[in-house]
């Protein structure tokens, strides 16, 4: 087990450095530099510009710049925004929690809805209800998040007036949980819809596989009720592959969060990413990319380790 974890860990570290190299050099090639704001001043002299460049280390070879950036990164310093001059770590820090709240509540919703449907489909494969839920999964997966979001706002906010359109709280003065939940409802459902189809399909196929195992036949032959067979004997084993699905759905979740946050003006890092791209604020763009990379890597690592514990077979593959 220890060997398995170490191997996964090394792989994760390797991937992380790969991503930092790619991201850093992309930002190096990107148009615009930290000196641009100085150029707005027409009286600035060439000497002053070179002095500032030296101060920021921009005159050094690119690989030296990369390593000094990496050194700062490992200390948790992501540099400063070109626009607000604030620390990028701070800007991301104050929004990261909101994004996590949105993504995890949407995941929770997706699993809550999709797992029972998946189990039901697997118990009666090729029945009408199985066909309907399979078609439903395809339809839900084809719905673009921003269109669903706009439709929700139109229906539930504008027409019915049930839910607030955007943001996280109605006012900054009074922050109640109920108010938060009413703001969270539409974005979370919208993001959950993009996950439901996959979770449902995976649950159905892994349940089908488990139900054809010998020990299930044994359990049935012992005269256990069908309910007992499905929910105590089969379900536990059928849920194991769902752990992997959680890992592979992380990237899509993050991508979906960028769009969903934009639709509902949810104050998370997705919205920050979009506004930073519009203003070409590279330190913030790079910072978010690195943070997302680390989050996804750590998520996948945890998933791999959990899976290794749950299913000893994978440790040796």
């Amino acid at each position, binding site marked *: 087990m220890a060997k398995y974890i170490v191997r996964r860990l090394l792989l994760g570290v390797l*991937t992380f450095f*790969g*991503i930092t190299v790619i*991201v850093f050099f*992309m*930002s190096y*090639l*990107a*148009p615009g530099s930290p000196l641009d704001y100085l150029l707005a001043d027409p009286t600035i002299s060439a000497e002053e510009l070179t002095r500032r460049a030296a101060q920021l280390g921009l005159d050094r070879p690119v690989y030296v710049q990369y390593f000094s950036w990496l050194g700062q990164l490992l200390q948790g310093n992501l540099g400063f925004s070109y626009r607000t001059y604030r620390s990028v770590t701070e800007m991301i820090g104050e929004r990261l929690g909101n994004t996590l709240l949105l993504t995890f509540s949407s995941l929770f919703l997706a699993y809550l809805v999709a797992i029972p449907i998946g189990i039901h489909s697997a118990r009666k494969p090729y029945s009408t209800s199985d066909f309907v839920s399979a*078609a439903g999964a*395809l*339809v839900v*997966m*084809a*719905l*673009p*998040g*921003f*269109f669903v979001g*706009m*439709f929700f*706002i*139109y229906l539930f*906010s*504008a027409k019915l007036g049930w839910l607030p*359109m955007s943001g996280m709280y109605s006012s900054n003065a009074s922050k109640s949980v109920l108010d938060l939940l009413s703001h969270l409802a539409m974005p979370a459902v919208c993001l959950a819809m993009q996950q439901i189809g996959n979770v449902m399909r995976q649950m159905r196929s892994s349940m089908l596989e488990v139900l054809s195992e010998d020990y299930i036949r044994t359990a049935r032959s012992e005269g256990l009720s069908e309910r007992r067979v499905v929910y105590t004997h089969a379900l536990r084993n059928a849920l194991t592959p769902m752990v992997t699905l959680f890992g*592979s759905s*992380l*990237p*899509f979740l*993050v*991508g*979906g969060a*960028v*769009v969903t946050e*934009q639709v509902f003006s949810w104050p998370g890092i997705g919205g920050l*990413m*979009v506004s930073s*791209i*519009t203003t*070409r604020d*590279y330190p913030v*763009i*790079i910072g*978010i*990319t690195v943070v*997302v*990379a680390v989050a*996804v*890597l750590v998520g*996948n690592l945890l998933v791999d380790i959990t899976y290794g514990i749950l299913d000893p077979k994978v440790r040796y593959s």
Partner: protein
Amino acid sequence: MGMIKKQDKARSYYADVFQKFRRHRMAMVGLYVITLVLLAVFVLPLLLGLDPITSTRGKAFLLPGGEFPLGLDGLGRDNLARLLYGGRTSIQVGLLSTAVSILIGVPLGLCAGYFRGWFEALVMRLVDIFMSFPSMILILVLVSVVGPSIWSVTLIIGIMGWPDFARIIYGNVLSVSQKEYVEGARAVGATHPRIIRDYILPNAFSPVLVTITYRTASAILQEAALSYLGMGVQPPAASLGNILNTAQSLTTLTMRPWFWMPPGILLVLIVLSINFIGDGMRDALDPKMKV
């Protein structure tokens, strides 16, 4: 003689697949819908002489009816024309970027599966890295560096889609390479390019057809999301995503649903019918295949 036999066999295999496909009801519905959509976005604008760019002065926000069934937008442009040209943009970006993904992914996956060794390790590790990272974030970063336009978006979405193809062809090449006929070809001294062209590729390619449909659908969704965020196809060119972007203002969103409902529904129809066709193809080619 040998050549003729081989072709006969190939034809009957795909004829058989087509027979099965035709029995897949949802796939056939998808095929009809996408045909109608293609006619609507590529032929109808020419027949009606629609113009998505020119503004009719002083008639911004004209209500639907008469000459303009979907009214005019905030700049006095024909909403129906923009809808159809937007659909055309979506399909064009989807197909071209998928072509880019195939051009990168298929050769890499093919060589990784055929030659094995360090090349296999390198390519498959890259596939893992690409698939474990949110492609939407990388696409956004790349677009911010290159600058948004229909061509940069097509290329970037295409580049980010290569792992899907590399992975599917890799797995198939691995299993096809073990077959006796490949051994036989090797034994009689066929060169690598010849083995790949005549024995490996024809037998490992069919799952790629299914991946093409799924990849096209997700490329269309990615382009729409980018354009919705303002990072994709730039106005005045129309795209389903950027029409929805301009409809985000509160009054348009709540008071003028005819601005944004039709492009949203058209987008869903396109993606859905492509996915249904993909499902039908998967079942027809091999019901056990996992894509």
